[in-house]
């Protein structure tokens, strides 16, 4: 299950069977469009190939090229990777650390929310799910900007803290700090993480849980041996999304991270925009992606091992 893409796995039983309804629909459609099936996938696959696979391949090739007086020359050297390693190792380690933190916090809150929606919300489960989904599709910049309004030294939170006398002067580390980045990204990523976990929880057969309880398992035991292992696909997907988005983000650090908090995304972006050094930007991107992939593989192994039913 965990091989399945997050948003695909969010759908109930994708592609398990050519559904009867769909088959009928298609049989009607194909009467009008002979040979329909063959070309129906073509536009989507063209978009994927021409606007994703080929650009990514080209961008990767560029990471081996050379830049001399603002012009690109074909080459096959690893000097860009070496330069990326030498110049940006600290930023990369910091970024990966932030990504792990954000992914872990998001995962815990998202799991609790998905669990609430699935098992505990009762008649509120529909509305809560609706809020989660509705905030998924909109307001990326607005959300980050909102935190700037809330966390600033004259922001709402500080006004509240001062008014209630909890602090005597504004708390300065709320904004322009790693804390602000973690909070903003957790807020932004929460819906993205709730969705795949909820989808996994929804697939769990409640009779399994009841059977475990009937056989005398405690709540804890039923949760640990049935619910957690059966939702590990969703857990991994939620973690992956949160981790990768944080690792590649430059908007959040730019807006709420302040002048001393640099993440790799900021440097990739500036290699490209300010220094016109595409090869170094590319090497930095792919170096970062490779590190993320390695960490995710380790996370996957650890997750599997820790959720094994004893």
């Amino acid at each position: 299950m965990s091989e399945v893409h997050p948003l695909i796995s969010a759908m109930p039983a994708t592609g398990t069977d050519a559904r009867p309804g769909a088959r009928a629909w298609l049989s009607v459609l194909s009467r009008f469009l002979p040979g329909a099936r063959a070309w129906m996938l073509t536009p989507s696959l063209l978009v994927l190939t021409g606007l994703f696979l080929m650009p990514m391949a080209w961008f990767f090739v560029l990471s081996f090229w050379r830049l001399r007086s603002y012009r690109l020359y074909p080459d096959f050297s690893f000097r860009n990777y070496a330069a990326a390693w030498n110049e940006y190792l600290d930023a990369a380690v910091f970024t990966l650390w932030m990504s792990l933190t954000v992914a872990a916090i998001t995962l815990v809150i998202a799991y609790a929310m998905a669990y609430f929606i699935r098992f505990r919300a009762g008649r509120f489960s529909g509305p809560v799910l609706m809020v989660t989904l509705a905030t998924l599709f909109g307001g990326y910049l607005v959300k980050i900007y909102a935190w700037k309004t809330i966390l600033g030294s004259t922001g709402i939170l500080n006004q509240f803290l001062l008014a209630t006398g909890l602090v005597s002067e504004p708390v300065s580390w709320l904004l322009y700090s790693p804390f602000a980045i973690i909070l903003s990204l957790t807020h932004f990523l929460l819906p993205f993480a709730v969705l795949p976990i909820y989808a996994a929880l929804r697939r769990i057969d409640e009779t399994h849980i009841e059977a475990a309880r009937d056989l005398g398992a405690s709540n804890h035991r039923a949760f640990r041996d049935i619910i957690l292992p059966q939702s590990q696909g969703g857990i991994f997907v939620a973690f992956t999304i949160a981790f990768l988005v944080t690792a590649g983000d430059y908007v959040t650090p730019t807006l709420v991270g302040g002048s001393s908090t640099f993440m790799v995304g900021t440097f990739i972006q500036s290699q490209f925009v300010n220094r016109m050094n595409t090869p170094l930007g590319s090497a930095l991107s792919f170096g970062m992606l490779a590190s993320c992939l390695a960490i995710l593989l380790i996370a996957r192994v650890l997750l599997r091992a820790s959720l094994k039913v004893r």
Partner: protein
Amino acid sequence: MKRLPQTAWYAFGLASVLFMISPLAIVVFFSFTSNRHATIPAGAMTFDWYRELLANPDFWPALTNSLIVVGFVGLISMVIGTLAALALVKLRPRLATGISNLLAFPLMLPPLVLALALVTSFSWIGAPLGLWTVILSHLVFTQPFVILIVTAQMQGFDESLIECSRDLGASPWQSFNTIVLPIIRATLIGSTLIAMSISLDDFVITFFTIGGGLTLSTLIWGMLRTSLDPSINALGTLILLFTVGASTLALRITHYRG
């Protein structure tokens, strides 16, 4: 784990909903209040920031560009996504899952990397940047959502309805037009709205692939970088109104629940 009392779960649920909504609510709230800064008490209610936004010479071109991009992206991704979804359900399950995962793969990567790959590729083939490069780029990450929603929806499709109509003498076209289309219309509209929201909301890929002009999201970025002009709240509210509004509407009419 001790069994938490139900009230504790409700409290948690309420807290998490508030956490998700309140930052957005704050932006909306301060777009209607007269204070220059987000302070409490907030001052009188006003539409000044909206007036200021409409008077901003950059706003109208940005709005026009956004409407063009969103319109084309919504329409094209609905058509190609629906076609793909229709073909996918006919394929062998393994193959179908493989292809859907492949099509959804771009969603896994940080948008920045995709944006840079696209813009270097456009310059490699000598394509001038503009609205059409933005539209093409958006398709990469809007089509997976259309495919998802349409595929999910087709599970509830009742085949016998078509058989009935055919038995009663309807032509294939009649049964498509009078039975299939009304049933899937909501899904098509819903998935178009979702694609439009994602397109309007995207900043990173738009910013890199547009070259010169502005859209609403790159305009808000510019305003954020230069000043803390309260009309940002007004613009943010407009974007939220469209994206969250359109997604809510889409979720209602499609009954899509993840």
